[in-house]
């Protein structure tokens, strides 16, 4: 027994250390011992990685006193997410330690980096709603520090739009949580099982977590932020933190427990649109971070679709949950690898070598669904899911998936081309060592082979027919890309900071006239949003015209102030210029009342009055 207790204690300690280590290190950043924290940056993620392998599922840490009672534990879903996240954070930390070493602000960077890490780990472990919310908030707000880290005008703008959306997400989540807690009669995640979820809550959750994963109307922050953050942080942002949104959906809308046709429609439509939209806009962007962000939007769109499919039925839900996790792992590894690679290559001197190109191509094609990569496995899983769900969503596997695959291929090729051209243009400090990148490449290529649970899908995906199914969109995409590049006049891609894409679009996209109009419309909306942001920033007092309007309103509404000012005049002894008339009247009346004749009259009058009144 004692041994058992001891073991349990150790596991509990390990569990606590998962989020605790980064938090402790983050607080060290505020003390003179900040150098230690900077050195120990990777250590923070290692404890999480260890825990994800060692701590068994039954270990639960209950802290009833903490923040309306908290519970931490590591279930199967959490374990996968924790493992992947910890790995990505580890790589990001390793590359980040080198990259921001000579940055004067590196201490601040480390602090926010660690806090975001703690948030990310904590939310994976959280087994109660508020714990999830707490760590989610910690992660989201800390990531702001990463977004604005570079301190450029552009970074601040990105940070601002990031913050706006984070706030909207927080509020939506808050509302959703309140309603869920009310209907579930408990705060633990397991209380949610069997609870009917109001469609309104679904919408709120869609907004709250959708913002994190860049679901369609709420993706605006993503491209700017991905472009603005330093590459290591971007890897963490795109690889680990986006998953918090997916995990949130999985936690709060437990697939396999909930069926919601309306919800599935919402998720599938929004996801499908995002998948296409991300590709279309991404092709028109000229900076690597932005392009990757749109790729993320697109990929996350696909995952949203998977989630939506999971909402169509109970069995489908179970199925979809697994596919979703698989897809998420695949995307995280690939995307973080791309960012890490971009971080290595952005500041290189000289042209790219073959190896570099190959290193970029591996995760890129994996994203596109190249056979024998995790991408292919995931896409096959997606197809199985649509087959399982059946009509009306069967159409997705027939048209939607190949189209997105083609699009993704185009997009990643576009990305590689951009990276080739942006020699030494990004000022991200010194170039980081390639070690982390290489590790991530290994993970991309090996992960699915080492993951026992997905072997069925893997086997399935390497059947010959499937291989071709996965391959043709990539070939098509490659051919299209080649054709596009031939059509477009060769020109140096401008890579100066903050290019207003819409202004240069005509020169670049002459080959694709048919979507120029569409793009202009969409780009116009985005510009609009940006303009709005700029305006908001220029006036530190926000919404100036609105404020003017309010002030006018105040003047008319505030009749109480009118009373107050009258009293003020009274207080100043009525001597103000505008009230001389009243003052004069009062003085005169008082004088007249003092005349003997008037006194006599009032005396007699009152005498008579009293005489009669007394009767």
């Amino acid at each position: 027994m004692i041994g058992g207790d001891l073991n349990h204690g150790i596991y509990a300690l390990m569990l606590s250390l998962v989020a605790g280590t980064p938090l402790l290190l983050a607080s060290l950043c505020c003390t003179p011992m900040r150098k230690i924290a900077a050195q120990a940056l990777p250590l923070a993620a290692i404890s999480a990685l260890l825990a994800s392998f060692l701590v068994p599922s039954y270990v639960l840490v209950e802290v009833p006193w903490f923040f309306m009672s908290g519970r931490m534990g590591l279930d199967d879903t959490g374990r996968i997410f924790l493992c992947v996240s910890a790995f990505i954070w580890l790589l990001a930390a390793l590359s980040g330690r080198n990259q921001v070493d000579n940055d004067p602000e590196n201490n601040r960077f480390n602090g926010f980096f660690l806090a975001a890490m703690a948030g990310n780990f904590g939310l994976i472990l959280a087994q109660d709603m508020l714990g999830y919310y707490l760590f989610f908030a910690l992660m989201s707000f800390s990531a702001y520090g990463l977004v604005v880290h570079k301190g450029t005008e552009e970074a601040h703008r990105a940070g601002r739009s990031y913050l706006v959306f984070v706030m909207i997400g927080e509020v939506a989540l808050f509302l959703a949580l309140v309603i869920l807690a009310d209907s579930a009669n408990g705060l633990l995640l397991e209380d949610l099982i069997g609870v009917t979820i109001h469609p309104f809550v679904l919408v709120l959750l869609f907004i709250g977590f959708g913002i994190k994963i860049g679901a369609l109307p709420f993706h605006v922050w993503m491209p700017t932020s991905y472009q603005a953050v330093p590459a290591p942080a971007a890897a963490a942002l795109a690889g680990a933190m986006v998953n918090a949104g997916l995990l949130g959906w999985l936690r709060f809308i437990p697939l396999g427990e909930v069926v919601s046709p309306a919800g599935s429609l919402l998720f599938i439509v929004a996801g499908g649109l995002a998948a296409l939209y991300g590709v279309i806009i991404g092709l028109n962007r000229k900076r690597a971070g932005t392009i990757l962000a749109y790729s993320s939007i697109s990929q996350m769109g696909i995952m949203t679709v998977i989630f939506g499919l999971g909402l169509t039925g109970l069995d489908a839900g179970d199925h979809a949950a697994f596919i979703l996790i698989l897809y998420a792992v695949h995307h995280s590894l690939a995307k973080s690898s791309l960012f890490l690679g971009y971080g290595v290559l952005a500041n290189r001197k000289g042209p790219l070598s073959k190896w570099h190109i190959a290193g970029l191509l591996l995760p890129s094609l994996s994203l596109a669904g190249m056979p024998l990569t995790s991408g292919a496995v995931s896409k096959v899983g997606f197809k199985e899911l649509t087959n399982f769900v059946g009509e009306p969503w069967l159409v997705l596997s027939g048209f939607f998936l190949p189209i997105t695959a083609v699009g993704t291929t185009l997009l990643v090729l576009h990305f590689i081309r951009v990276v080739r051209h942006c020699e030494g243009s990004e000022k991200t400090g010194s170039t980081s060592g390639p070690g982390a990148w290489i590790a991530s490449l290994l993970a991309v290529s090996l992960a699915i082979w080492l993951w026992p649970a997905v072997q069925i899908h893997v086997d399935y995906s390497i059947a010959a027919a499937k291989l071709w199914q996965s391959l043709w969109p990539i070939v098509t995409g490659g051919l299209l890309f080649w054709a596009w590049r031939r059509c477009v006049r060769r020109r140096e891609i401008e890579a100066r900071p903050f290019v207003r894409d819409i202004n240069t679009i005509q020169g670049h996209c002459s080959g694709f006239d048919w979507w120029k109009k569409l793009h202009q419309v969409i780009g116009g909306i985005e510009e609009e949003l940006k303009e709005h942001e700029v305006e908001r920033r220029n006036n530190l007092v926000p919404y100036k015209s609105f404020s003017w309007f309010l002030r006018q309103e105040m003047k008319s509404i505030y009749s109480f102030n009118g009373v107050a000012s009258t009293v003020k005049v009274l207080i100043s002894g009525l001597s103000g210029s505008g009230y001389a008339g009243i003052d004069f009247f009062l003085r005169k009346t008082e004088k007249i009342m003092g005349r003997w004749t008037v006194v006599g009259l009032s005396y007699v009058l009152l005498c008579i009055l009293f005489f009669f009144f007394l009767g």
Partner: protein
Amino acid sequence: MITNTLYSLCGLVLFAMGLFALFACSHLLRKILAVNIMSAGVFLVLVAAAYRPLGAGEVDPVPHAMVLTGIVVSVSVTALALILACRVQETSNLSISRNGLKVNDEEGSGG
């Protein structure tokens, strides 16, 4: 009985006249006199009140005592009023007989 009522009425008329003079005249001395006439009127009414119908016993002594007291009070008050009037005339630059009393509230200073 009639005489008694006559006295009383007479006293009231005196009182009313004094009242009118007090309010209408601005001269200080006149005002003092008006007050005196008023008190005389009151005393007259009071004396009339002492009247007892024939055969109802002696005259009521209480009003007389009151009148005597009243006269004493009246005399002393008149003396004070006169002194004050003189003082007012001495110290103020106002021409009492013409303009009457003028107290300027706004400029009046305390101390």
